[in-house]
């Protein structure tokens, strides 16, 4: 009899959780996707049945309801000690074709950059680097885990060199151990540099420049791996590996030790270590995307000429002053994001004196990872869906010289795959889902860190402000871009 009671209780709990989730989903659906919207034509935000700012209010309501449901129905920490179940193993020899594929694609990028036509629409490199590499890999990492690690060209090359050295009886020991103070700062620096290249530098889509930078990055990675060890540097020093790996922690699957493991969604990110630079990393990711949105909006486009003319007044020519103004804008966007998080952390600090502000900032940094992903997905979704199709014909004709290797060179981008209104709904849904995920992570961490329910609840009021603020900011930026 006692055995019969426990599953019943468990299923009742599950039912309640399911009801809670369905309620959130229903409210989100009714608030964010009114039926009337489908009857309208698709022509940007003008075709929405309600003003776009109302979506920010609806998103705030969804977050408040999620906060209440989480507080009442989620009473014990569930994500702090992730448990994984192995799904299947694969032969370690598969690492060879994976690494070989990564190296071959890298070689193609370099070759197409130097030998292809210098137009970004016809050359393989800009689309591959800015759409496939920068956007599609993080998005797919959410579904498939950290698969890039196996395909990383620099890691594959270093491992091949090590294997050849071992066969020739030459053993290389890394002369340095990775300093703890360096933490994730190389990843932060690398992402900032890439963000600057993409959003600020005027010649960012020049294929030969991209090829040169790719080679320089490759060399830098090899030096890092030679000094600190292949796996050590790949994990902490590789900007792109670190970036993709961070998002893959949200995935329900984990690629580890030659096997695929299943875990609870979001649970992987709770084990994100609080080494130096972790908070900066997530804030920089959000900040870069924020500036990407702001740079296409009315506010920055009206302010930017004034800032540019200030630098022109100092004697700089047009291009450097333009780049300086945008660099300032990028820093400003990151500062705004840091300010949002800082307000939340100081608010939590006001709840209990047991933790210092830096401790809280580090402890809750992982809650920003789903927000970072939501920002990336929302801001680049249209780019991925539309410009991503271009890789179909660019793969057949990577140099832009008229070749047709796979018979797909005649393909075109089909812009009717999804309309502007559809994209807006996807963006809103991505932002809201990401922020609800962040709220759930913060709630789980609060249950594990605070002794009394009152402190835990109060701390989460502050995280609610952070989440509502980021959601509103994201929607404002997106609406500015779309209108």
């Amino acid at each position, binding site marked *: *009899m*006692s055995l019969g*009671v*426990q599953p019943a*209780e468990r299923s009742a709990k599950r039912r309640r959780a399911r009801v809670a989730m369905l309620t959130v989903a229903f409210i989100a659906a009714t608030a964010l996707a009114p039926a009337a919207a489908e009857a309208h034509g698709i022509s940007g935000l003008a075709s929405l049945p309600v*003003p776009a*700012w109302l979506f*920010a*209010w609806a998103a*705030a309501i969804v977050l408040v309801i999620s906060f*209440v449901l989480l*507080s*009442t*129905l989620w*009473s014990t920490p569930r994500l702090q000690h992730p448990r994984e179940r192995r799904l299947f193993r694969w032969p370690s020899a598969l690492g060879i074709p994976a690494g070989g594929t990564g190296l071959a694609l890298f070689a193609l990028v370099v070759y197409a950059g130097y030998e292809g036509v210098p137009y970004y629409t016809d050359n393989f490199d800009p689309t591959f680097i800015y759409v496939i590499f920068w956007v599609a890999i993080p998005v797919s990492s959410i579904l498939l885990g950290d698969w890039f690690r196996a395909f990383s060209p620099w890691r594959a090359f270093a491992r091949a060199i090590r294997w050849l050295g071992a066969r020739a009886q030459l053993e290389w020991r890394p002369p340095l151990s990775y300093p703890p103070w360096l933490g994730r700062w190389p990843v932060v620096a690398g992402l900032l540099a890439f963000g600057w290249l993409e959003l600020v530098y005027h010649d960012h889509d020049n294929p030969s420049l991209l090829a040169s930078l790719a080679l320089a990055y490759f060399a830098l990675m090899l030096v890092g791996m030679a000094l600190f060890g292949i796996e050590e540097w790949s994990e902490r020093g590789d900007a792109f590996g670190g970036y993709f790996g961070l998002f893959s922690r949200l995935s329900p699957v984990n690629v580890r030790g030659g096997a695929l493991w299943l875990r609870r969604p979001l649970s992987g990110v709770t084990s994100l270590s609080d080494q130096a630079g972790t908070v900066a990393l997530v804030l920089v990711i959000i900040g870069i995307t924020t500036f990407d949105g702001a740079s296409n909006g*009315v*506010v920055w486009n*009206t*302010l930017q000429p004034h800032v540019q003319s200030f630098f022109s007044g100092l004697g700089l020519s047009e291009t450097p002053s333009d780049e300086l103004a945008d660099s300032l804008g990028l820093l400003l966007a990151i500062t*705004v994001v840091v*300010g949002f998080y*800082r*307000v939340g952390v*100081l*608010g939590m*600090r*006001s709840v209990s004196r047991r933790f210092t502000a830096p401790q809280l900032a580090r402890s809750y940094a992982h809650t920003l990872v789903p927000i970072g992903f939501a920002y990336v997905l929302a801001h680049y979704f249209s780019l991925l869906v539309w410009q991503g199709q271009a890789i179909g014909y660019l793969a057949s004709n990577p140099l832009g010289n008229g070749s047709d290797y796979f018979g797909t060179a005649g393909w075109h981008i089909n812009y009717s795959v999804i309309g502007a209104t559809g994209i807006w709904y996807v963006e809103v849904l991505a932002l809201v889902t990401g922020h609800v995920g962040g709220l759930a992570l913060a709630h789980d961490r609060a249950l594990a860190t605070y002794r009394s*329910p*009152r402190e835990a*609840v*109060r701390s989460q*009021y*502050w995280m*609610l*402000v952070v989440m*509502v*603020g980021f*959601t*509103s*900011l994201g*929607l*404002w930026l997106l*609406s500015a871009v779309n209108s």
Partner: protein
Amino acid sequence: MIRCRLLIAVATIALAGIATCYAQGALIEALAYLLPALLLLVVLATRSYPGERALLALIERKRRLRHDSAAGLIGRQLSLRALVPRGGRLIAASLAERPPPSLAAVSLI
């Protein structure tokens, strides 16, 4: 001290937002988007947590319900074990001169 910092942060963000948007003439639009977050921030900055009491009451009620149901479950398990002795307990009960207290209580009913 923290409250003062918070107010400074709120004021800075609000001023920066207003200054930026005023320069652009987009004040209304920006406010329309950011108002829910700003409202919540202002309310919390005054150290009031709307709905906190109701939320804590709900949490406490749920905790008590869970506790009661767990206690009931343990009670049921104990009484079942006591009613149906097994293994060593069965041998002990049969050899004992008087029955264990639980069985005695049952027999009294």
